[in-house]
């Protein structure tokens, strides 16, 4: 099962390697991992997308909690939550493809943020499925380059991950 784990961690050197080292040492999967400081710069917030059986996910959260730098761990996918990922795609935009690209961008509510005679850079945010769908819709021939941020997640409603 796919899980989205959010955690708050001390913003200290080596903290990221402790988390990534834990995953590799214990053979856990990482589908994506994003991290950046929070509004309180002494703390970072990390979102890890991982897969595993219930037992493994239980171990992952326990092991993360055990790291001395880790302040809080929540499996946000256990209840209602929002996931977003940012993608930048550089696409070929020449001839009839140029209009087609513009149209696709509108349909997906993406934005064109860089224009040259031959290419666009398209910015798109959404959940993984939406980003995948966009790539699928454009097709590999027109894609010059893609870069994805990995997932950021947050609980819906009153649920707040804070100290």
């Amino acid at each position, binding site marked *: 099962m796919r899980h989205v784990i959010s955690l708050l961690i001390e913003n200290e050197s080596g903290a990221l390697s402790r988390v990534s080292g834990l995953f590799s040492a214990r053979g856990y999967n990482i589908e994506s991992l994003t991290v950046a400081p929070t509004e309180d710069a002494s703390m970072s917030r990390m979102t890890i997308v991982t897969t595993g059986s219930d037992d493994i996910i239980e171990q992952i959260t326990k092991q993360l*909690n055990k790291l*001395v730098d880790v302040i809080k761990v929540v499996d946000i996918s256990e209840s209602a939550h929002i996931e977003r990922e940012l993608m930048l795609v550089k696409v070929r935009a020449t001839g009839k493809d140029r209009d087609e690209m513009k149209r696709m961008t509108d349909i997906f509510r993406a934005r064109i943020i860089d224009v040259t005679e031959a290419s666009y850079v398209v910015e798109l945010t959404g959940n993984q499925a939406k980003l995948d769908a966009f790539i699928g819709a454009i097709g590999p021939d027109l894609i010059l380059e893609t870069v994805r941020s990995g997932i950021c997640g947050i609980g819906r409603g009153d649920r707040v991950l804070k100290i």
Partner: protein
Amino acid sequence: MVLSGAEIVVRCLQEEKVEYVFGYPGGAVLFLYDALFNQDKVKHVLVRHEQAAVHAADGFSRSTSKVGVALVTSGPGATNAVTGIATAYCDSIPMVIISGQVPTAAIGQDAFQEVDTVGITRPCVKHTFLVKDVREVASTIKKAFHIARTGRPGPVLVDIPKDVTMHKCEFEYPEDIVMRSYNPVTKGHQGQIRKAVQLLLEARRPMIYTGGGAILSDAAEQLTRLTRLLGMPITNTLMGLGGYPASDRQYLGMPGMHGTYEANMAMHYSDVLLAIGARFDDRVIGNPDHFAEEPRKIIHLDIDPSSISKRVKVDVPIVGDVREVLEQMIQQIESAPARPNADALESWWKQIDDWRSRDCMKYRNSDEIIKPQFVVQKLWEVTGGDAIITSDVGQHQMWAAQYYRFDKPRRWLNSGGLGTMGVGLPYAMGAQLAHPGAPVACITGEASIQMNIQELSTCKQFRLPIKICNLNNRFLGMVRQWQQLFHGGRYSESYMDSLPDFAKLAESYGHIGLRVDKPGDVEGALREAFARKDDLVFLDFQVDRTENVYPMVQGGKGLTDMILSAEDL
């Protein structure tokens, strides 16, 4: 008061009441050594190899429950220390390791004797710090000691660049430390404890199984009270020996791969298993699927939530410090109206006594050739069961665990988790320094002892009257045993050729060496050794070369599938 980083480190160690630092100097720690030189509160023990420094600090900790401290230089000093750190980590031993590092400005430049110590040690420490500013030295060391000794204990490494030890700042040792990210639970959840107590009182075939956690939290007294109060059988793992008196009737011996028949059978056929500070290691429960076949309720008490339901599914988890939770548990039992089911217990004990009557620890003694088990039994007799025993890793370790009956905690020091050959002598050094005048014996093998034999020199310098009992079978005995049983008797590289004359070797270091060839001389030699209160005596026992450790549960097999003796093969 304005002090240099190095002076601050030493002042912090004084504040932490550190008696001994085990270490080895080098370029990156010269200022630290200078600061040590100028005081005499913290004594430095100069080892002959950094691995031994860490092991000795570890042994000091195991025998006292204090935090062990080691000091090594950058680069090779730190890499030599890694085995020691990993060994302590696997057995959750509280330690602070201070390593020198190249100056801050040189970090990342492939400087002379630079290694990424924080990176190399990261997977085998509880936590690491790289101190980049002299103003953080005191608070970091305070945190390091706090982290090492609280929660599930473990080694903490503090890497200090040379310039930081040289820079100066105002020194003040923080009174306490607040860490928002680190607040281990110690008290158990009363509701969970109530559930556990109810299960125990209703149990028909209860069993108590305790590990290193019971020793680490100094809970032997509570454990004994609880076990007697309940009248239930108990087993202590290799790491838990001495948690409950081995000479008591309720004690069934050690469980696991080389455990007793009765302990393994009782573990397997129990209907309620109370696991305390233990982690269902593969060497203890054998094949987990086989173990799970028999239905039983498991109560698991541990300070580390990640140890619970890791290898076996647990019905009643209790997170907390073993000693505190046992106190809570005893209180609840004493105030509960219900008592354990006496009839059920009686027939359970009948069954256990029946298993016991197999006398699985018997071995065939000989008048001709020294049996290794016999040496351990004699050692137990000669020391009145009251020595601190360290061991290395191999057959001799298992015989020591099986035949030296530990009645008290912190008398048995061995590398259970990592299984590091070479710990025996440094462990004995740490223990002897912590307990001057106490009998300390190191049970070892001719292969293991050679992994840190250079420490005989340290023992001379610091006058450590350790008694080394070398069970010399001229084989990597444990390897040979597996090759005999599982690899068609092909003894690939498991013999020890070109051995030194250990007695002479010991003498050349200024100690006393005795070679013992005959069973009839074993006791006399041991008595002579222990009579020499001020001397290190190296007893080189020439033992039966091909004796095997039994009982044995083969890897991957179920706990009840035991080879009891050579006749079972």
